[in-house]
Every structure is written in structure tokens, then in C-alpha cells.
């Protein structure tokens, strides 16, 4: 039914999307801490899922379903940052500090780490002093 070219394009989308889904999963396992893992899951959400939906769009042909799938992609892209930001903020509020590379740990061990931690704490407190976490 669908022309061969369109079918091949949608196959390409499926393969790329599937590969990126696996990539996101591998990243989730390989990355060292919570915040870097959010970046890995971003690959699945922002490119893999739209590619898969794009592949489906090619197969449905021009119909109302195409528009619906497009809406799904738009909602996916609109809600992803909200969820990622909410998770990151919740982790920070819960006292989780981002892992900032092996450099801090290898250098002077405890001391280097401590300094870094205090610096972050100071900056965060200054930030809170300005008194806002809203988007104004």
C-alpha cells in the first residue's frame, strides 16, 4: 500500500529509534550517578521515541492518525524537560550531590572533596538567599 521509498524510510526510523532505545538503556547502566543517568535517559525520550513514532507516521499514510501521532511527539517533547527538571530538583532537595568527575576524588582525596562540597553548599545558600526557585 505504502510506496516502497516511504517504507524504507520508516524502516530506517525504526532501526535508528530501536538502536537509540538500547543506547539509552546502556547509558543508564554505564553512567556513574543519578544526574548523569538523567542525561542517558534523555536520549531515549527526546530522539528514540520521536523516531519510532515518526516511523509509525510513515506507515499510516496521510490520515488523522498522522496528526495524532504528531501531537504525541509534541507532548512527549514538552513534558520531558518538566519531568527531568523535577527529578533533578527533588534529588538536590533530598541532599544528593552530583558526582563531578574522578579529578576531585583522585587529587587530595578527602580534602579535595570537602572543599568542593563546601563551595557548592555556599553557592547554593547564596542562591536560596535570592529567594526564588520559580520561573520569574
Amino acid at each position, binding site marked *: 500500500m505504502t510506496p516502497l521509498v516511504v517504507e524504507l524510510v520508516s524502516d530506517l526510523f525504526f532501526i535508528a529509534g530501536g538502536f537509540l532505545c538500547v543506547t*539509552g538503556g546502556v547509558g543508564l547502566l554505564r553512567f556513574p550517578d543519578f*544526574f548523569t543517568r538523567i542525561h542517558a535517559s534523555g536520549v531515549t525520550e*527526546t530522539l528514540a521515541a520521536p523516531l519510532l513514532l515518526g516511523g509509525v507516521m510513515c506507515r499510516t499514510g496521510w490520515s488523522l492518525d498522522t496528526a495524532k501521532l504528531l501531537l504525541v511527539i509534541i507532548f512527549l517533547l514538552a513534558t*520531558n*524537560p518538566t519531568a527531568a527538571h523535577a527529578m*533533578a530538583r527533588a534529588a538536590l532537595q533530598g541532599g544528593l550531590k*552530583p558526582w563531578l568527575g574522578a579529578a576531585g576524588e583522585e587529587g587530595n582525596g578527602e580534602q579535595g572533596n570537602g572543599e568542593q562540597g563546601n563551595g557548592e553548599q555556599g553557592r547554593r545558600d547564596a542562591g536560596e538567599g535570592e529567594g526564588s*526557585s520559580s520561573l520569574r
Partner: protein
Amino acid sequence: MYYPAIAVTLYLFWLVLSGHFSGFFLLLGAISSLLVLFCLRRMDRVDRSPGFVPPAPGLFAYGAWLLWSVVRSNIDVARRIWDPSLPIDPQWRPLKVALTKPFGRALYANSITLTPGTLTTDVHPGHFNIHCLSEAAMEELEEGEMERRIRRLGR
């Protein structure tokens, strides 16, 4: 202009989702659009924030550019994931933000988070705190092309 524009948008949204064009369903769509509009008017008495952003050509151009940069940064992050030496160097530091209007700031913060490899953790009056997967991604943000594009939208 505000309420009619929302009514039209809601009704088009209903049409796309329902896919039935017989009189009964068109009437149901109109009723539910009006019901939502009625609720919205009541809620606007409490919250008068600018809730409706009219679509402008500039916004679509920005969206296209944003999609392209999402693709680019996805490829970058995917490469880092598959590289056996795992070449990541996470950064977490403030980024100066000169945008002042709420919509522009929200758009900027969300655009940063949408691109994999960069993540907005906090929003403060003069700066955002950004968590980055690599120094290069942070430098690209500090170079400021995304912010310039949003400023050009005039929001």
C-alpha cells in the same frame, strides 16, 4: 482575542482527536470546549498569568533549530555512552542568564533540559544552575547561541 483564540484552539484539538465529523460529535465538541472555557474564565480570576502564547513564525523557526540541536546533542551523548573509555566529565555550575521575561526564561530553561547532556537544576533571577555531561556542552551554552535566538523572539 484571548478567549476566542483559546476556544478555536480547543475545538480544533477536539476535532483532531475525535476524527468523527457527524453533527452529534461536532455538537459534543462545542459543548466540551465551552465547558473548558467556562472553567478557565473562573480560574483566571485567581491566576492572571499570561497563559496563552500565540503562535508566531519565529517560534516555529526556533522549534526547528531546537530540534536540530537536540539531534546533534543526542548523537554526542550516544557516542559517549558507547565509547569504551566512557569520556564524561560532569560539570555543575551557574550559567549567567540575561533574559528577564517569564516566557523567555521558561523556554530557555526547558530548551536546556530538553537537549540531552545539559540539565537545568535550579532557576534563579540572574543565573540558572546547569548540570552538564561534558565541559564542551557547558561551553556551548556559555557561548550563548540559544539565548540569543530566544532574545530575538522578543520574549
